[in-house]
């Protein structure tokens, strides 16, 4: 396979044509099946509720929520897999199931409704196109969706902020730990993560949360919290490694 010599030729005059100048034949999705229905997703969800195994939950008093949550996640995995097979009913079901959660995360990060809507649209269009790359063996559908949504949002934030760095940023809003009530309803993965988060220094835990929910870069976080960049990096890096060790126990 041929490779161009890479680093030896820096800064060649670069011409990137305006992508709108490309005209391309867009495939029309089969016209005869344009109506979405929810039968599929709901039927699958009911099947799962009947067959889910209560023995999988850790504490007897939380059997119902935990198995319901596991069943919900299982359904979401199957639904996203079906979307990967270009099943449009499954796509509608997936949107019904997950859009509010995904939108909640995006909105928390960009704090601008119009932009959040734009991103949600972009994310789900990408979901339809890329769902065949989803592999349930490698991770859950919720992780896949949240990761896709956060990556898109972070990229969008970088586009804005790396051009306008002097934007007056809101004062550091401490990201608060989840309330015990909220945590009780959270997934097992979320509860485990919180147990490990609680082992971090409170300030560093706050910074990790702030980083996650703001999508801000190291330098933005440092200036927002008035901390030297090196300090910010070492706080976050140490916290991440501590979290990893704790989660792998």
């Amino acid at each position: 396979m041929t490779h161009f010599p890479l680093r030896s030729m820096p800064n060649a005059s670069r011409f990137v044509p305006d992508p709108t100048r490309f005209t391309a034949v867009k495939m029309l999705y089969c016209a005869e099946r344009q109506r979405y229905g929810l039968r599929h997703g709901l039927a699958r969800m009911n099947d799962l509720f009947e067959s889910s195994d209560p023995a999988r939950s850790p504490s007897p008093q939380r059997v119902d929520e935990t198995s319901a949550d596991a069943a919900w996640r299982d359904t979401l995995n199957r639904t996203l897999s079906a979307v990967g097979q270009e099943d449009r009913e499954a796509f509608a079901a997936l949107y019904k199931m997950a859009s509010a959660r995904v939108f909640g995360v995006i909105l928390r990060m960009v704090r601008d409704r119009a932009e959040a809507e734009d991103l949600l649209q972009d994310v789900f269009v990408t979901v339809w196109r890329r769902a065949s790359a989803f592999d349930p063996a490698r991770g859950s559908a919720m992780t896949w969706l949240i990761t896709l949504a956060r990556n898109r949002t972070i990229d969008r934030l970088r586009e804005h902020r790396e051009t306008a760095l002097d934007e007056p940023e809101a004062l550091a809003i401490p990201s608060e730990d989840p309330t015990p009530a909220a945590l009780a309803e959270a997934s097992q993965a979320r509860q485990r993560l919180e147990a490990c988060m609680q082992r971090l220094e409170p300030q560093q835990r706050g910074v990790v949360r702030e980083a996650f929910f703001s999508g801000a870069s190291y330098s933005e976080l440092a200036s927002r919290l008035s901390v030297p960049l090196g300090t910010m990096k070492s706080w976050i890096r140490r916290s991440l490694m501590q979290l990893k060790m704790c989660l792998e126990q």
Partner: protein
Amino acid sequence: MNTPANHDDELRCAEYALGVLSAAERRELEREAGENPLVQANLHRWQARIAPLAEDAPPVEPPPRVWQRIQRDLGVAPEVRAARRAPSTWWDNLRLWRWLGLGAGIAALVLLAVNFSSLMHFGQPTAVVSPYMVAAIARQDGVTHWTATVDTRRGNMVVVPADKSVIAAGRATELWLIPPNAKPIALGVFPADQPASMALPPEILAQMGDNAMLAVSIEPSGGSPTGQPTGPVVASGTIRPA
């Protein structure tokens, strides 16, 4: 190339998943993850570790217009289907361009032969008057993947797929012009499996002389981050007058 799962990779995957890297650092890690399955797996693990935090954000029901826009984008909303159909003129006709591309390729060969024989007869080259130039962009094994037709008068180029190409998710095909003894010039990302047309400014057109080459490399979805090809070159072909 990175050694697998070293401490630096581990940290950068963690930082990527949390979302604290700059745009350039993000692109760099995405590129490495695309090339190195170990980095890719590490990144997946970190995303799975971090993603549960998202549950703390309360769900917010999006307005119905977002779903309508998604359907419109995917070309399934009924009122838009009619609108979409209208502009599918001859310009968007894949078959037409394939035949045109093929025809142009054959014409180029014929003209070459004619030129060659007239050269033999008269001992001097015949001026080529055609405003068109063509290139068959082929794999190393000779299979043509795309044909490019350049209209030098109008300053545009049409690239037509001649064979079905499968590009990995998150990757894109980028087209490069390589003038003789010069660096590749990025012409932009183009859809691998659909005909595409692009405008060529005069400074690019000027480089499209004889013996210049067109090449296609596999890049991250937004195109090469460096301005030079970063991925493997999958096909190339010399530009010839048609």
